[in-house]
C-alpha cells in the first residue's frame, strides 16, 4: 500500500469512528435517561422494575465496551496522519496489545505488556512501526501452541531502542519457531518495513523471540 492509500483508509476510518462515537453517546444518554426515569418511578406502578434496571445496566456496559473499541480504532486511524513524528514506545505497545488481543484470545495465548520504567520516545513513522510490531506478534501467534505467553518489552540502550517479543510455552512445530522464516509473509513484510524505517530485526532462537531494533 502506498502512502496515499494508507492516508485514505485512515481518513475514512477516523470519520466513521467519530460518527459511531456519536451513536454510542446517544445510546448511553438515552439508556441513562430511562434509568433516571425508573429511579423516580414508584415500584408498585412499574412491574418488574428491577429487571428493567438490570437490563439497562447491561446496555450501558456494552456501550462502554463499544466506546473503548471505537476509541482504539480511532487512535489506529490517526497513525497514518503523519509519517514522521515522536512515538512513545510504551504507548504504541499498549495500543498493539489492543490490536492483537483478539487474535491471541482465539488461540488461547496471553499477551503481556512489559512496559519500560523509563519513557522511550523515538522519531519514526507510527503506522509502519505499529505494522512491524503487529507482523512480529502475528508470526509468533501462528507458531505457538495453546496456553502460551507472549511478552512485549521495549528497551533503550544509548541511542538504540528495541522491542523484544518473547514467547514462553510449547511450539506448534517442535523443531524450530523460525523453520519457515524465509518464506513467512509476516517476516517478509517485517523485513521490508524495517528497511523503510532504517531498522533491523533479529530472530533469537534460544529465547524464542523476535527483537526489533530501531
Amino acid at each position: 500500500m502506498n502512502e496515499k492509500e494508507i492516508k485514505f483508509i485512515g481518513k475514512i476510518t477516523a470519520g466513521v469512528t467519530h460518527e459511531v462515537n456519536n451513536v454510542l453517546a446517544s445510546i448511553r444518554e438515552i439508556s441513562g435517561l430511562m434509568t433516571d426515569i425508573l429511579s423516580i418511578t414508584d415500584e408498585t406502578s412499574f412491574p418488574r422494575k428491577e429487571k428493567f434496571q438490570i437490563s439497562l445496566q447491561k446496555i450501558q456496559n456494552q456501550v462502554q465496551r463499544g466506546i473503548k473499541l471505537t476509541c482504539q480504532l480511532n487512535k489506529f486511524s490517526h497513525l497514518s496522519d503523519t509519517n514522521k513524528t515522536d512515538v512513545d514506545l510504551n504507548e504504541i505497545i499498549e495500543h498493539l496489545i489492543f490490536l492483537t488481543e483478539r487474535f491471541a484470545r482465539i488461540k488461547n495465548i496471553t499477551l503481556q505488556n512489559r512496559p519500560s520504567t523509563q519513557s522511550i520516545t523515538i522519531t519514526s513513522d507510527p503506522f509502519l512501526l505499529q505494522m512491524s510490531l503487529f507482523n512480529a506478534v502475528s508470526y509468533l501467534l501462528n507458531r505457538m501452541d495453546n496456553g502460551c505467553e507472549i511478552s512485549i518489552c521495549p528497551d533503550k540502550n544509548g541511542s538504540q531502542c528495541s522491542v523484544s517479543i518473547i514467547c514462553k510455552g510449547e511450539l506448534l512445530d517442535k523443531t524450530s519457531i523460525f523453520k519457515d522464516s524465509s518464506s513467512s509473509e509476516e517476516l517478509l513484510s517485517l523485513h521490508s518495513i524495517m528497511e523503510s524505517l532504517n531498522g533491523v530485526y533479529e530472530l533469537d532462537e534460544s529465547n524464542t523471540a523476535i527483537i526489533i531494533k530501531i
Partner: protein
Amino acid sequence: MYKLDNIRVLIVDDEEELAATIAERLEIRGIQAQTASDADSALGLIKTDPPDVVVLDLMMPGIGGLGILKQINLLEKKIPVILLTGYSSKERSIEGMNLGAFDYVLKPCQLDDLISKIQEAAKIK
C-alpha cells in the same frame, strides 16, 4: 439523585437527539437546559436569553465549535463555556482553552462529570 438549583445551561451540539437527551437528564436533576443545533440558533439564544453556562461541541458544522466560542467571547456578558471534545480533538481543545474556554470534557462524557464542571463554571460566573 441530587437537585441543582436554578443553573441555566445551553447545550450546543448538531447531534440533536444527544443534546435533547442530555438536556432532559439535566432537567431531572434541576438544571434548566436548552439546546441548539447550529451556530446561528446558539448565538441567538445566548444573546436573547443568556444562560449561566454553555456546553459546546467542538465538531460543529459551519464555523465550528471554536468559531462559536470566538463569537461568545465577543459578547459583553461573560459566559463560561465547557467544550465537548472527540478522541482526536486534543489540539482543538487546547486551542479552545487558550481562547478562554472554562474546561473541556471528552465525548461521550459521564453525566456526573459534566454536572460537576457545570457547577464549577456556574460558580465562577
